[in-house]
């Protein structure tokens, strides 16, 4: 992998089933809204030796009409929502700051956990992104510093701390530690 510039990483990995799954989903999603991939899959994309059953995506808040267009497009391309087949409920879950999951029809794993960017941290994550150029297309991820801070100071499970360590070791020549501290303070303020 190499940094093409400060906001773009070229990744020459052999794509796995999870990578292919998310790239297909993103092709539909990005026609309708801005998005950013966050959390565990970011570490996995960059080689972390663990599997996952879901990929977390934050999207810009959509009104009912726009979300309906996205939902219909997903259905047309063979996806279903695991939480309900009632569109009004999907909208209501998202509006209530809950995540909804989409998988390929008749499957549950892998799935994409979609959430509106509802708080300050999430809204900032949508703006602070990196483009990862893979052999099969582009994936927009949250910045590495932000990922490390969220995993280490907000999520904090063993798995999250290991994900943070993986990213920190892997990108040690590129990350800005002062940014991690800055995000740490924002997270602590949000949690207070």
């Amino acid at each position, binding site marked *: 992998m190499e940094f093409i510039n400060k906001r773009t990483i070229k990744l020459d990995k052999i794509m796995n089933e999870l990578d292919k799954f998310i790239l297909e989903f993103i092709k539909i999603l990005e026609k309708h809204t801005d998005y950013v991939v966050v959390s565990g899959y970011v570490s996995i994309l960059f080689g972390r030796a663990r599997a996952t059953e879901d990929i977390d995506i934050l999207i810009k808040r959509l009104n009912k009409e726009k979300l309906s267009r996205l939902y219909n497009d997903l259905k047309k391309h063979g996806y279903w929502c695991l939480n309900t087949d009632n569109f009004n409920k999907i909208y209501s879950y998202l509006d209530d700051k809950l995540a909804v999951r989409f998988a390929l029809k008749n499957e*549950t794993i892998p799935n994409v956990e979609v959430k509106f960017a509802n708080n300050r941290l999430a809204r900032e994550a949508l703006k602070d992104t990196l483009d990862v150029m893979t052999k099969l297309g582009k994936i927009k991820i949250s910045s590495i510093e932000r990922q490390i801070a969220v995993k280490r100071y907000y999520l904090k499970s063993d798995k999250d701390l290991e994900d943070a360590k993986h990213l920190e*070791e892997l990108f040690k020549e590129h990350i800005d530690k002062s940014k991690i501290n800055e995000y740490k303070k924002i997270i602590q303020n949000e949690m207070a």
Partner: protein
Amino acid sequence: MSIKKLFKMKWLKPGNNNNRDRMNFVKYWADYVRTHPDDLWSKQQNVLIDSQISGARRFKHSPKKYLKIKNEPYS
């Protein structure tokens, strides 16, 4: 020349408890990913990821059962 010398790899340090041992491996593997070509590490990682997905596709949960395990809403 051995592959370890070729890519200047470090040795994996054993930990004195499970957490330390796991964290040592995370550092070791991240170092491997950082110092090796993408196709070399991804080939190994894909064994893990692809097998999980193919297993999940063979033994399907219904959304209701899956979300119950996750303690998430279903209607």
